[in-house]
């Protein structure tokens, strides 16, 4: 037995192979097939990349929007003006000017002021909370924030905020501040914050008051009776009944869902099932906590009205109203801060989403490589 040498094998195989005719049409068929595949299914690397980028952007946007909605109540509540409001809020937002003699005001409003019968121009409308909103600052009508039952049986909730700009004689700023503070405490409220510059050339002071909604009108009336000129008075009422009711409904639903998940949790057998159900329980609990916080905030805002009283001495240049430009700059500053807060607030969820997508992309890439190796 002789083992064929490498040269023998090469020669034998080469001679054998050379006896095979190579099909002349073979290469052209490969070329034609390659052209067909190319035109039938053009493969562009940027298409999946663009699709992935679009998915990331959409997901981040969605997360941002969801968070935006969740945090909407916080931001809206923090806004004293009360304009705008929640999307589902159907009642128009009354924001009336009941300024004093030096500020222009409509005739009906002046009549209402003079008669002390409140702001007849206010109208809640729509959701059954109209009476409450309409009576926000009314002397004889329903008082501010009063929790009436709406047409649908839901407890009416109105968030009332207001401001008074008073002008007093020189050296009367301090005593007036004290009088306002005492009036607020007597009405069952408290001073949330206060500043005063009584020793300066232009003495002034400002108090932010929180008073029970039912006593808001009484307090405004007492302040107006002080020895001071009312330069500007504003009140806005925001009907949050629908929002509050919606929160209550969501909370009930979520609590029921959590109960069901907890029952399921007690029936799980495998670790995978436990983890899956536990994750849902955690999600629902987190959602309940957030909504509960929003509900409490709304309840607090509707239970306690906010009133800002600013007092200046006669001759103080600050007594004039803020110009439109100043107001715009202030709004711009607030908007900027709100935007930054929103970005920071949502960055966590967006980052988590991007991380998940990155992991999915990495896994997909590995799978693709494995599949490619198997394909070839």
């Amino acid at each position: 037995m002789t083992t064929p040498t490498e040269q023998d094998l090469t020669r034998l195989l080469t001679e054998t192979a050379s006896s095979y005719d190579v099909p002349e049409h073979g290469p052209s068929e490969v070329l034609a097939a390659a052209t067909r595949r190319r035109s039938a299914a053009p493969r562009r690397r940027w298409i999946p990349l663009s699709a992935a980028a679009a998915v990331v952007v959409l997901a981040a946007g969605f997360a941002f929007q969801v968070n935006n909605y969740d945090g909407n109540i916080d931001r809206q509540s923090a806004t004293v003006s009360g304009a705008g409001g929640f999307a589902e809020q159907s009642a128009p937002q009354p924001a009336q000017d009941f300024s004093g003699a030096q500020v222009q005001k409509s005739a009906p409003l002046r009549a209402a002021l003079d008669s002390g019968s409140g702001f007849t121009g206010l109208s809640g409308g729509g959701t059954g909370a109209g009476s409450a909103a309409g009576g926000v600052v009314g002397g004889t009508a329903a008082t501010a924030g009063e929790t009436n039952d709406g047409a649908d049986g839901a407890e009416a909730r109105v968030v009332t905020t207001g401001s008074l700009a008073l002008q007093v004689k020189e050296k009367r700023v301090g005593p007036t501040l004290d009088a306002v503070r005492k009036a607020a405490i007597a009405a069952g409220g408290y001073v949330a914050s206060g500043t005063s510059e009584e020793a300066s050339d232009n003495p002034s002071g400002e108090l932010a008051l929180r008073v029970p909604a039912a006593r808001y009108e009484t307090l405004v009336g007492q302040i107006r009776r002080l020895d001071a000129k009312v330069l500007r008075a504003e009140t806005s009422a925001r009907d949050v009944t629908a929002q509050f009711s919606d929160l209550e409904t969501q909370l009930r639903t979520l609590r029921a869902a959590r109960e069901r998940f907890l029952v399921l949790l007690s029936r799980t057998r495998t670790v995978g099932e436990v983890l899956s159900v536990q994750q849902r329980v955690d999600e629902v609990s987190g959602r309940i906590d957030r909504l509960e916080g929003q509900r409490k905030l709304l309840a607090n805002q509707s239970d306690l009205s906010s009133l800002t009283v600013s007092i200046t001495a006669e001759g103080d240049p600050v007594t004039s109203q803020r110009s439109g430009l100043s107001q715009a700059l202030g709004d711009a500053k607030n908007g900027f801060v709100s935007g930054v807060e929103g970005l920071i607030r949502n960055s966590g969820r967006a980052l988590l989403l991007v991380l998940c997508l990155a992991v999915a992309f990495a896994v997909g890439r590995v799978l693709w490589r494995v599949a490619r190796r198997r394909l070839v």
Partner: protein
Amino acid sequence: MDDLEQWLARDYARAYRTARLVLRNAADAEDAVQEAFLRVWRFRDAIPADAGRNAWLYRVVVNACVSSLRAQRSHTGRDDGADALEGLADRGPEPELLAEQEALAAVVEAALAELPEHLRIPLILRFYSGLSEAEIATAIDRRPGTVKSRLYDARQRLAQDPRLAAWVNADTTNDALEASS
């Protein structure tokens, strides 16, 4: 596309004949090679930089051949006879030489047919396609040591084929005679 054309012009014939040696069937070999070129061309950007395109081409050729062989086993037989007749009809005007070549081909094919796939394929890749052991390792997705071992086993098996040994000895004798004269 020009690149593909050049590549085909350079390597198609050898890849086709490799597949033909493995499959012993013209149509299957053509299909296997066509699919192999298309796949490697399609995934050309994904081929590792340290691996030659040809090694991957033969890897795909081998995979296609193995698939085809499995299909052959489960379906119809080979058409060696028809191919051989077709080949003879197409040959040029040297019948003696062609007959001798056909006879050699028949012996080699028979000897190859006796080898199992895992020995036949490395043998063909090494001694016809001219791939190195490392390239064969890439092509059959095995370690170079395995390739070396399989090549050794294949040669040992071929040594036991008396007809092939006769051809080898005859050629060696002829070479010696030509050298002495």
